[in-house]
């Protein structure tokens, strides 16, 4: 078990290094970008005097050498200060804290659905690799990969919010409902259906294909033949001996994909006007609100790092080869 603690510590250290790297990237982006905060402020105010420019520069620490600015920036972030939004005129952290739960709700629901259903579909397909269902999964995966996610969302919107108005077209809940009441939660659930289905669908396609391939690979392995030679029934062979091994690559790739799923969420939020990080990011970019957009980039990278850490540890728990390590 000592081995496992070392892995955990290593991973934590790695995660911290990655987050620091994101911070530095953010800082560099601010400085590479043509025009800086002063220009933006000047633009907002419609032209200002040189004295005022110097004053703002000093206020934001822009007159100091670059490394000092970086140190200051890192220090601020460590204190939880991601800067001030020009457009909303509130601290960026507040904006993000307001938007993050909605995005996580969307992403985690969609991802869990996609993972669970996708794995099951893939396993069923792998048991008859030449059957009709298996071909269906292959086609589904191809379509899921090829359709732009926002377009799928729009198609759902047109079909199930416009032609057949089963679901609300936008937003997260009726503003008239009191947050926390049962009606409110039911309404959120009602609003969630289309965006979750849209987001889940592409990854459902992806995971069913992945799990089919992984399962086929495992079912062809020697230890599955051993399990059959023991006299175990097909069900035990597939769901006990094969599935656990087939899950290893699925979990690994799910971890690596999390960043992309967040990206998909940005688009889905834009389609369904879902009040999350994606909508906030889009708004911030259109308003050229630098601190907000960089704050979101930093925050979402951090979410990805944390999620990767969790999948990494899960994966270590499933696979004894890593949990215990080899004696040789």
């Amino acid at each position, binding site marked *: 078990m000592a081995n496992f603690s070392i892995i955990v510590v290593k991973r934590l250290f790695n995660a911290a290094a990655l987050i620091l790297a994101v911070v530095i990237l953010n800082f560099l982006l601010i400085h590479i970008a043509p025009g800086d905060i002063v220009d933006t402020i000047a633009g907002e105010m419609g032209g200002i005097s040189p004295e005022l420019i110097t004053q703002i520069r000093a206020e934001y620490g822009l007159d100091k050498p670059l490394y000092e600015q970086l140190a200051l920036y890192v220090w601020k972030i460590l204190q939880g200060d991601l800067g001030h939004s020009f457009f909303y005129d509130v601290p960026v952290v507040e904006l993000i804290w307001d938007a993050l739960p909605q995005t996580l709700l969307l992403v985690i629901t969609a991802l869990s659905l996609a993972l669970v259903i996708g794995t099951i579909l893939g396993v069923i397909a792998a048991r008859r690799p*030449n059957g009709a269902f298996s071909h269906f999964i292959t086609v589904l995966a191809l379509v899921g990969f090829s359709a732009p996610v926002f377009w799928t969302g729009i198609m759902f919107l047109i079909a199930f919010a416009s032609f057949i108005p089963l679901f609300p077209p936008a937003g997260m809940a009726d503003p008239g409902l009191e947050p926390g009441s049962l009606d409110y939660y039911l309404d959120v659930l009602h609003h969630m259906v289309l965006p979750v289905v849209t987001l889940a669908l592409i990854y459902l396609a992806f995971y069913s294909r992945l799990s089919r391939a992984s399962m086929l690979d495992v079912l062809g*392995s*020697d*230890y599955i*033949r*051993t*399990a*059959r*030679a*023991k*006299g*175990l*029934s097909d069900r035990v062979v597939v769901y006990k*001996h094969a599935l*656990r*091994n087939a899950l290893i690559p699925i979990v690994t790739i799910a971890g690596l994909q999390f960043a992309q799923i967040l990206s998909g969420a940005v688009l889905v939020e834009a389609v369904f006007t879902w009040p999350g990080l994606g909508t906030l990011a889009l708004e911030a970019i259109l308003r050229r609100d630098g601190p907000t957009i960089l704050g979101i980039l930093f925050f979402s990278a951090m979410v990805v790092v944390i999620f990767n850490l969790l999948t990494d540890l899960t994966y270590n728990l*499933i*696979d*004894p*080869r890593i949990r*215990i390590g*080899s*004696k*040789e």
Partner: protein
Amino acid sequence: MAEPLLEIKDLRVEFDTRDGVATVIDGLDISLYPGEILGIVGESGCGKSMTALSIMRLVPVPPGRIAKGTIRLDGEDLLQVSEKRMRGVRGNAISMIFQEPMTSLNPVFSVGDQIAETILLHEGGSKRAAWQRAVEMLDAVGIPVPEVRAREYPHQMSGGMRQRVMIAMALACQPRVLIADEPTTALDVTVQAQIFDLLKDLQKKTGAVIVLITHDMGAIAEMAQRVVVMYAGRKVEDGPVDEILTNPKHPYTTGLIGCVPHLSADPSEERVPLTDIPGVVPPMTRLGQGCPFAPRCSEAMDKCRLEMPTQSVVGEDHRVSCWLIENDGP
């Protein structure tokens, strides 16, 4: 001779391929008698492993299928019984160990769990009792500190250790037949000898019949009492090991024996040069109507290329399928 314990009669196994049906085993007869070790020998692709999988009824269907024949264990035709009954036979009355000990154990379960699983499946009882038996089995196959080792995972063990675990698992339910498919091919030479000794030892203790499948005539000489020589899915010669080694009738058998180096105690003695058999086993879709070995046989005659040889008895319990023998007359 006594009644056979397991009797394969006229077995035929086919595979669908892109180029039509390949007959990978054809007209195979093999009998197993209580208390013996039977060797099955031949090059890669001659149908040895497929014979083993047929006995276990584990031929992959599709693309494969057992097209014809009977496999009787104590009179019960295993090819006719239900899948459920067959599951009760596998790992219980007949069990099997495979060529690749490195990959034949499930990497995510401890070896103790994997052995106990077989015991629970076929004999029931408490988990604890099954685990206890698993530890005893590990001890019986010569694994030191079995209580500790049982909790380990396959990746923590060497190839020889893993093959011992496989043997322990195969013998856990006192099988009547143990099929060992190239059990030592993937192992170091010193470990090979240990595994062979272990198998012989366990065979004496448990009385299980062992079917040893190998490409190595040397292993046959050391282990088996009787041997079946297979080529391209057919039995070409069978008989007692001593008889076959000293008096092989089929050119293919002679070739296989010629591939094994002879050790001699006296270094000054002139060594017999090693020989090889030219060519390779033909693909099963390309077999003609004649003797499948004819294209590689130095003594092939016109008849060999046109007609499949019939079986002739050439000695006590010694049979061969070759036109050379037919010509000489019995």
